[in-house]
């Protein structure tokens, strides 16, 4: 890491989820040069990992891949995936230069210029590891392309688990395997930065009321998305512990949200809708199963959402007003849900084959200590003008969009990303005019 190259762009987009892609496309289409820096091995964020999406129930892959490939093929948008941001700030050496980011390209142990994405290495690799892309519900190889529609189509070698057998190196038709690849540092200078680092779910492991992640068939909602995806771990919805088709499935809403003692005080905004969506998809794939949603308020506020909710009710999905206080392991892999019925009738218990936790959303990235942009009390990036322009931050050349500025569904994320691109473009055209 001696010589550090400097790459110059108009805008640096941090995070290649749908927010980052949309904002980059909107700027790229205006003629600005935009770099997307993504920590994962593929762009696409959470959205590419979903099954189908409310309220239109279209296939998540079918509407994410066009944006992913539009960005990947865009002449103004280079992608830097599998990268770590180690610093992001104004260029202190020279304010006029704007934004400066120090980035480390993590080694894939595969030469990206040689690799043709054929996956021969993956097929010969003898080591199986847990597939985090499938919610840890199935296995993949120690060298593998993260998922079928990943962009770029480059494998990553899991060096921790690799036993250096050399089989991939032998089979690779392009000699792309490089066991000695090193992390490489580079610098991006840009006039503006847009933060689109998205969200993560609260880890269910931290929540002892819901079994600290130890009760077998209690999964989080992102794992359920994988179970429902046509290219999911089992190709159909089965209980992870024993492969049984669940007859009774429960959703626990506000799991960790709207309650400081359980997680976070705010509403996570999308979990009501995705639970209803998943319930609808489940009743399609398991028509005989009973599906129950335990909730306090159903927040179906967006365009077409209330109608979506009423459809779900009409389909026979059961909605019970009640806050789930505790989940325990039951017999034969089932889980016992204890909830306080809101009608005042007290504590009730119910047994379910599979329980899905609609876990709260927390920021995907904590800027401190590497970036001085300010955070609000909810830990998401502060919007200094939440009415006139929610994408403005306390730094005049830094903008924010998507779930990085608070939980948000895809529709609101996409429009907000356009708005962030607009503000960045305005900032850059102002600075041109001033010069």
């Amino acid at each position, binding site marked *: 890491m001696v010589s550090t190259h400097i790459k110059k762009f108009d805008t640096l987009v941090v995070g290649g989820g749908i927010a980052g892609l949309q904002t980059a496309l909107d700027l790229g289409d205006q003629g600005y040069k935009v770099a997307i820096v993504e920590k994962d091995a593929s762009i696409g964020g959470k959205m590419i990992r979903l099954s189908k999406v409310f309220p239109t129930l*279209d*296939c998540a*892959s*079918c509407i994410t*891949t*066009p944006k992913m490939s539009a960005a990947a093929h865009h002449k103004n948008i280079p992608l830097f995936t599998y990268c770590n941001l180690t610093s992001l700030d104004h260029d202190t050496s020279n304010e006029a230069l704007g934004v400066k980011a120090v980035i480390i390209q993590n080694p894939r142990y595969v030469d990206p210029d040689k690799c043709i994405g054929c*996956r021969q290495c993956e097929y010969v690799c003898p080591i199986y590891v847990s597939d985090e892309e499938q919610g840890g519900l199935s296995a993949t190889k120690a060298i593998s392309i993260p998922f*079928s*529609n990943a962009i770029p189509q480059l494998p990553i070698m899991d060096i921790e688990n690799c036993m250096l057998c050399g089989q991939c190196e032998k089979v690779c038709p392009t000699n792309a395997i490089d066991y000695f690849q090193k992390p490489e540092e580079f610098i991006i200078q840009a006039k503006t930065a847009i933060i689109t680092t998205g969200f993560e779910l609260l880890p269910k492991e931290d929540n002892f009321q819901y079994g600290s992640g130890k009760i077998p068939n209690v999964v989080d909602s992102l794992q359920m998305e994988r179970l429902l*995806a*046509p*290219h999911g771990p089992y*190709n159909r919805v089965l209980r992870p512990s024993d492969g049984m088709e669940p007859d009774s499935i429960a959703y626990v809403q506000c799991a960790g949200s709207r309650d400081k003692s359980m997680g976070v005080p705010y509403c996570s905004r999308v979990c009501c809708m995705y639970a209803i969506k998943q319930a609808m998809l489940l009743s399609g794939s398991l028509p005989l199963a009973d599906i129950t949603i335990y909730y306090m308020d159903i927040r179906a506020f967006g365009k077409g959402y209330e109608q979506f909710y009423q459809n779900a009710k009409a389909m026979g999905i059961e909605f019970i007003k009640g806050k789930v206080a505790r989940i325990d392991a039951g017999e034969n892999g089932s889980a016992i849900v204890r909830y306080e019925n809101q009608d005042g009738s007290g504590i009730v218990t119910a047994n379910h084959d599979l329980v899905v936790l609609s876990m709260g959303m927390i920021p995907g990235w904590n800027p401190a200590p590497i970036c001085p942009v300010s955070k609000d009390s909810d830990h998401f990036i502060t919007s200094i003008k939440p009415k006139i322009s929610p994408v403005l931050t306390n730094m005049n050349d830094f903008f924010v969009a998507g779930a990085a500025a608070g939980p948000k569904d895809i529709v609101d994320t996409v429009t907000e990303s356009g708005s962030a691109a607009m503000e960045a473009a305005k900032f850059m055209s102002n600075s041109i005019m001033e010069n």
Partner: protein
Amino acid sequence: MSPQAKKQENKILILATETCAYPGADSVGQAHSTYPANTYILRVRAPVLFPESFYFDCFKKGISGIIVMSCGEECPYEGAFTAMAKRLDGVYKKMKAMELDLKRLRLTAICTVCNRSFLNEVNQMDKLVRELGPPIFKK
């Protein structure tokens, strides 16, 4: 390997939309699933392009089965799916009059990761055309 290709019977033509079904077929390839090789996938923008006569010409030329793999209601060309579905209704009527088995023509929606549906459709059509053989036109 034989130096010359053998004449292949029972060909299946697949009209696959460029935004949904065609990438869907690629996804089956990425998964290295196998399906019968008598299938020929043509990438189309919107199958509404094809007139009724196209389908009959194909059958006359010796194509045994046709699967239209569309985007369904998610078709990016507003109104095209409905117009195409209506056209196929007309094709079915004529097929009936010609005593062609209606199952030789299938309309289905395939998404970019619908691997199983894709395989189902292809395998079913393959089974069918093997049973029926090439279409025979009674005057």
